[in-house]
């Protein structure tokens, strides 16, 4: 019996020692300490706690890199040149990098962890991107599945946007979400209003950020966002323009139309907005108001599956088919698109079929 107790006691003691060793190893072996990020050949240096992703480390140092997916490794936007430090290219980076980019030391900084000093190249314009601690001013239903989120910036803060850009908004920890996540949304704000950020948010079933906005976000609550990002801008040519959007893809065009009004731009603009039924249309009053003050602007909503009770007398069918019919010659025009990938692909096919060159088509394909 004594032997049995000694054996059990020894086993417990060994397990205890091993557990302590594991804790110590975890504490010290996984402690990467402070790592130095040397940016643009030493033009800027940041010291960060090792262990986080490069994207997270740069964020904590106040450097915000575009990332529409919030660091999931799915959008491929957070590319940076890493000239020293870091492991070889990871399998999760490979699908987003071309052979030339890999050769050129381009990395996906949401996948790369900081375990040592690193040397990076960051485009100068990203140094101007800021983080804002705003407050939810209002949440308005635009239709059954799209909300307009209006965020007021704190007194003294201003954001200078170029119409077409996007912001990243933080969804805090909630329900079963273990950590905050960021998602990108196009800005719908009039660029003259530098103290607010307006975002059109469409509910994504099971989406972490949109579920939060639709079910948990309240007016007056604090919200963290950063930006503005993106290069989906209006050109400065005199060419006639076509806008094509669906759903929450309306957002950048609200901002662009406000800019066209503010600047007295007289270019012809035809805006095709696709929806299934009347209940899916949004911002009809704003569009009517723009048509009143912009004589060269025409809004063309198109319904693909209108209900009989909609009594719809406007354009019907796919928005691309309507556009092709109403604009048979697009050789001298430009197009701006915002919507789902399928919509963008279908629009590009329709535009080029009617003669528009590929380089005259700009789009935000999230």
């Amino acid at each position: 019996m004594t032997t049995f107790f000694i054996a059990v006691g020894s086993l417990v003691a060994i397990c205890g020692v091993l557990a302590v060793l594991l804790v110590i190893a975890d504490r010290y072996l996984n402690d990467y300490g402070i790592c130095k990020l040397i940016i643009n050949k030493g033009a800027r240096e940041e010291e960060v706690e090792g262990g986080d992703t490069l994207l997270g480390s740069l964020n904590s140092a106040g450097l915000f890199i575009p990332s529409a997916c919030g660091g999931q490794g799915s959008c491929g936007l957070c590319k940076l040149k890493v000239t020293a430090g870091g492991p070889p290219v990871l399998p999760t980076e490979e699908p987003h990098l071309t052979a030339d980019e890999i050769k050129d030391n381009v990395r996906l900084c949401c996948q790369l962890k900081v375990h040592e000093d690193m040397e990076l190249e960051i485009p100068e314009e990203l140094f101007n991107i800021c983080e804002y601690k705003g407050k939810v001013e209002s949440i308005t239903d635009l239709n059954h599945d799209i909300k307009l989120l209006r965020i007021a910036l704190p007194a003294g803060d201003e954001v200078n946007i170029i119409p077409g850009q996007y912001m990243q908004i933080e969804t805090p920890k909630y329900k079963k979400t273990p950590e905050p996540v960021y998602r990108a949304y196009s800005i719908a704000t009039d660029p003259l209003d530098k103290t607010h950020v307006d975002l059109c948010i469409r509910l994504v079933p099971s989406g972490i950020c949109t579920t939060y906005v639709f079910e948990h976000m309240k007016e007056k609550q604090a919200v963290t966002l950063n930006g503005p990002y993106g290069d989906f801008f209006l050109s400065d040519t005199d060419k006639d323009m076509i806008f094509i959007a669906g759903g929450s893809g309306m957002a950048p065009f609200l901002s662009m139309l406000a800019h066209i009004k503010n600047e007295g731009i007289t270019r012809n603009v035809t805006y095709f907005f696709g929806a299934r039924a009347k209940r899916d249309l949004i911002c009809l009053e704003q569009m009517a108001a723009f048509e009143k003050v912009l004589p060269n602007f025409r809004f063309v909503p198109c319904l693909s599956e209108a209900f009989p009770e909609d009594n719809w007398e406007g354009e019907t069918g796919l928005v691309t088919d309507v556009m092709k019919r109403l604009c048979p010659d697009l050789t001298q025009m430009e197009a701006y698109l915002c919507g789902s990938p399928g919509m963008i692909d279908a629009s590009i096919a329709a535009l080029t079929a009617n003669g528009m060159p590929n380089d005259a088509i700009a789009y935000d394909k999230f």
Partner: protein
Amino acid sequence: MKENPADQPIRERLEPGHISVEGFLGTDNRPIADIVAADTGVVEAEGFTVEQLGDFLEKLHVTGDGGWESRVPMYDGKISVRSDETLGQISCPFACGTSCHKAIITVKDADGEDLLKFTPLDAHLISAHGFFEGLGSAYRIDPNELLALYRLCEGGE
């Protein structure tokens, strides 16, 4: 049952709140390898492969996308598909580097009855990882139901 340590990071990403609010496991507590083995076993016992079924779903997805949120008939009207897309992408929880567009594809029969609902990520998960999602998950695809739809459309014993 206990998860294989090598699959633990995958399990974490499949749990609620990491990639989607509800996650991919539902009420299923089995190790990932067991979930995959059980479902692929059903498919292989019928003489098919998960790649065939995943490719079939991808074909429905691509056709649905072409309809731009309108219902598109397929297979001589035996079924129709509609893809409702939203902006954004979702990365594969198996961390293989694949990311898929966010969309919900619904499949109906000739009478308009619901047959199947899936996402582009489901097509990838089935084809590349043999993962049909855990029991009780909102987007789980029952292999037998998918096989029945495949036979209806593509034929095969």
